[in-house]
């Protein structure tokens, strides 16, 4: 007999009911799916394991083969076993089930875990960044750049990084510190003019620089985070930016196909976070931060202020906490 053929039970039916309600018991759950040791619905096992081993939702594609593949890739990068402690469950993964009381409890435990962003030190946060990785760093001329994460990265002495950021700021400030310390192999940016050292390293062949129009860079990163295969922009048509790119004509106007950008790790700066990882920015320090939050495997936010859950008005939140893995409080 298949599991779905197991009948519903009627407790106390042999001796009859006298007064008061009772309910049917689903034999499939009661005898088949309920863990006698842990006293929980075994349908939650994957979620429980994810909680225990710090596997975030977006590292778990919809099928087991995809999961195994994604996880082995992350393990190779060293990103897996020191990852955040909270798990994201799609509401759909729970809402479709008939929920017994014990199961409901388990589900709420899992949901609660999900809303705890992990707070770590800057050194612990950048321990995930290994030689040769691609990182995104928020900020515009060092405004909105996570300086303490950059300092920790320089102190760690990482090499051969590819940096995706608006600019390389100034010597000694923001991304400039990564340039000074020789951490970079390649830079993808819209502007390097404020940092003469970047130009020197580029001219001497020690640093590869790809210059991208600022609006295109923003949209490429957004595409990387939004699941898009690229974007079409009129910017750069008829210039050297067009070189080697596919031109697509829409309604008689020519557009360049610009491909999505993603990174292994994104380093963000926000003004305020709550413990769920929701972020609020200040003034022009927002710039690329909310976009990069969507486009990396591991997202670390450096924040000036950390408040309890419930203190940020949901309407005020600019970056929802689901994008944020680790928080570093200044």
């Amino acid at each position: 007999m298949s599991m779905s053929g197991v009948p519903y039970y009627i407790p106390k039916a042999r001796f009859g009911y006298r007064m008061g309600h009772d309910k049917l018991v689903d034999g499939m759950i009661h005898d088949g799916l309920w863990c006698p040791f842990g006293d929980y619905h075994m349908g939650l096992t994957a979620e429980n394991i994810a909680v225990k081993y710090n596997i975030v939702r977006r590292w778990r594609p919809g099928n087991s083969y995809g999961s195994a593949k994604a996880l082995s890739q992350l393990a190779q990068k060293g990103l897996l076993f020191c990852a955040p402690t909270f798990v994201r469950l799609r509401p759909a993964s729970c809402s479709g089930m008939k929920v017994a009381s014990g199961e409901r409890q388990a589900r709420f435990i899992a949901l609660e875990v999900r809303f705890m962003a992990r707070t770590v030190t800057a050194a612990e946060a950048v321990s995930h960044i290994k030689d040769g990785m691609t990182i995104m760093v928020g900020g515009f001329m060092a405004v909105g750049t996570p300086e303490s994460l950059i300092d920790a990265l320089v102190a760690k002495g990482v090499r051969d990084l590819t940096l995706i950021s608006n600019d390389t700021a100034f010597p000694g400030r923001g991304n400039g510190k990564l340039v000074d310390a020789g951490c970079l192999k390649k830079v993808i940016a819209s502007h390097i003019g404020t940092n003469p050292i970047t130009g020197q390293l580029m001219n001497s062949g020690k640093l590869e620089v790809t210059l991208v129009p600022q609006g295109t860079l923003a949209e490429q990163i957004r595409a990387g985070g939004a699941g898009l295969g690229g974007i079409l922009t009129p910017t750069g048509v008829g210039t050297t930016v067009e070189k080697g790119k596919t031109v697509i004509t829409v309604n008689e106007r020519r557009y360049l196909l610009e491909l999505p950008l993603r990174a292994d790790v994104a380093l963000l700066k926000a003004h305020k976070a709550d413990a769920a990882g929701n972020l609020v920015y200040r003034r022009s320090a927002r710039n690329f931060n909310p976009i990069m939050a969507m486009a990396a495997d591991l997202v670390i936010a450096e924040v000036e202020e950390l408040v309890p859950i419930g203190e940020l008005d949901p309407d005020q939140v600019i970056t929802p906490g689901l994008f944020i893995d680790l928080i570093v409080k200044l």
Partner: protein
Amino acid sequence: MSNDKRILIAKRVAQELKNGDVVNLGIGLPTLVANYLPPGVKVWLQSENGFIGMGPAPEPGQEDPDLVDAGGRPVTILPGGACFDSCLSFSIIRGGHLDATVLGALQVDEQGNLASWMIPGKLVPGMGGAMDLTVGARRVIIATEHNLKDGTPKIVQQCTLPLTAARQVDLIVTELAVIEVTPEGLLLKEIAADTTVPEVIQRTGARLIIPEKVTKMDLELAS
């Protein structure tokens, strides 16, 4: 370029802006335009690093480290201003929501092509937001000196430097002349008070269409 020349150019460009316009001013000379708006004209200044409603530089000691212009200098934000991320900022720019942008130039040519972002082998700062601004703004106004220090014209038949954008420039304002880019070529609209049409022609590297009457720049309109 002398300060007088810069102020003259800024004053003349300011006359091109209308009350309520949303405008992005490039770094350097274009930034000065905000100081010379004619009486009664208020514009919304957009800064591509993510806000609109840019105000003047703060008093010393009042600088906000989170609030700078696209050149990285401390600024203020006026009541009614708004902050946003880079995607939205460039949606404003690329999406045709800017009434005008004022930019500098290395070269600008007869077809309205602009070169402003690199000199191969010498200067490679990057294009920043200039390519998006030139393509996206409804009106592209170039504010530049007429010639390089050695006299080489910046207004040329065809740009030899890498382009910022193709065929997007609408108006060129220099210390000598106001030149409109038309489908037929460069139309000389106005000349400065202290110059002549032959001098402008001589110092320009492109063919100019000279109408019967060329007016003199009138800077008294400006405040």
